[in-house]
């Protein structure tokens, strides 16, 4: 027995020494390999990622609730002190909104008459799914959040994510019970948008700053500060007309958009899982996208 152990040791000891020497090198190379695989959006890497997040999502969900409660409590205390000014502001806003409401009702009535006249076939409605934000991006280089809903509720990669204020981002990875949402401010976010008034098309391109910029503008584009920017729906990945933000600065030819969504205070989001004119729920490469223009 002893003899056998010794002979085993005779083999294992040098092997272990060799392994130890090369372990660090091996790990460094693995880190680089994983980074490249991740960059290439390899399916296996994404599976592992969303699988692990799926496993811990219930824990994060449970842990994030008390934090949200505390945050809501702090908000309440803050609100208590500004209740008078807030009331004034809301009254004023209410008066303005009532005007808008009557305008909207008139337009809706007019619109339905026109539709009847045109024999317009209504498109089928959009389907939503709601989720809670359970993980913040603690990362310096990525703008993303984790949500507690995934493929089990019909969420797919590429789905648009909105909050009450406007577009938040798109689903970058969907697990079964969780998904990661890439915010529109992220370096890798590209969203086809259009200015609401001038109908100037552009790509909203994130650069990790709080205000993404407009790229691929047509020459002589007419844009003004404060113009509302909405999704254009080109490519069929996103529904058209989702509010994105307003033009906040024009600096050296770089036009920046201030998003409506407040990314720091996101608690609940809606995911648009289905919408009229969606290209079968897939992300179609830009070159192969059917033209949706008429």
């Amino acid at each position, binding site marked *: 027995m002893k003899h056998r152990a010794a002979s085993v040791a005779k083999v294992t000891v040098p092997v272990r020494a060799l392994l130890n020497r090369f372990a660090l090198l091996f790990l460094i190379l693995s880190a*680089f390999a994983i*980074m490249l695989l991740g960059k290439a959006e390899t399916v296996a890497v994404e599976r592992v990622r969303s699988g692990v997040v799926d496993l811990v999502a219930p824990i994060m969900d449970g842990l994030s609730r008390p934090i949200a409660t505390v945050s809501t409590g702090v908000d309440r205390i803050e609100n208590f002190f500004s209740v008078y000014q807030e009331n004034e502001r809301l009254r004023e806003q209410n008066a303005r909104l009532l005007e808008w409401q009557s305008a909207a009702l008139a337009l809706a009535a007019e619109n339905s008459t026109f539709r009847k006249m045109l024999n317009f076939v209504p498109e089928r409605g959009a389907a939503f799914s709601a989720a809670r934000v359970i993980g913040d991006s603690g990362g310096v280089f990525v703008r993303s959040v984790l949500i507690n809903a995934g493929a089990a509720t019909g969420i797919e990669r590429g789905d648009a994510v909105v909050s009450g204020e406007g577009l938040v981002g798109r689903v970058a990875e969907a697990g079964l019970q969780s998904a990661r949402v890439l915010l529109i401010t992220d370096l890798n976010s590209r969203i086809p948008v259009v200015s609401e008034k001038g109908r100037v098309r552009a790509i909203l391109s994130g650069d990790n700053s709080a205000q993404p910029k407009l790229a691929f503008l047509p020459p002589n584009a007419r844009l003004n500060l404060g113009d509302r920017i909405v999704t254009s729906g080109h490519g069929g990945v996103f529904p058209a007309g989702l509010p994105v933000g307003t033009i906040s600065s024009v600096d050296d030819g770089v036009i920046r958009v201030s998003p409506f969504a407040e990314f720091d205070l996101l608690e609940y989001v809606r995911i648009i899982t289905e919408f009229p004119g969606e290209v079968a729920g897939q992300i179609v490469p830009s070159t192969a996208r059917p033209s949706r223009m008429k």
Partner: protein
Amino acid sequence: MINTALQRLDRSARLLAPFVVSVILVLLSALPVYVPGYGQIAVDVGLVTVFYWAIYRPDLFPAVAAFALGLWQDILVGSPIGLHALILLLANWAIVSQRTFFQGKAFGVIWWSFSLVALIAAIASWVIVCALNTTLISPVAALFQAALTIGAFPFMAWFLARVQHAVLRPIDVDV
């Protein structure tokens, strides 16, 4: 017989404590806090734990542990996968190889060394992310994060020291 089996279980659970505590701290750091802007410059908890254990208990926190913790952080936080794995691995290696320098040094020296490591880690990860995305991005957030992490280091080191004393003191594992 049962007693010794339990003791052995207890012992191995205690030996795993540095890694398990680090894993939990990284999970906590990924939760949303609803403070404007904090998510982008949140304290790099993984780096602090790797640094601490590499100095005080490198026997219980090998390179593989640093690598695994980095991957865990990448997955939870959503950073480019492999980025923290590499950074934490290199940090672990650098500190363990300089271990004799740290022995018996005052906390100030250790804090100063951590500042250096945090700064180098911030710059290195910024360079890697720029290379991965083939664009130049602003390094300001990374430097802010490094500053915040350096500021948080004494508090976290105090907490980790409490863990070390509470969990590792009862067993004689020093080699």
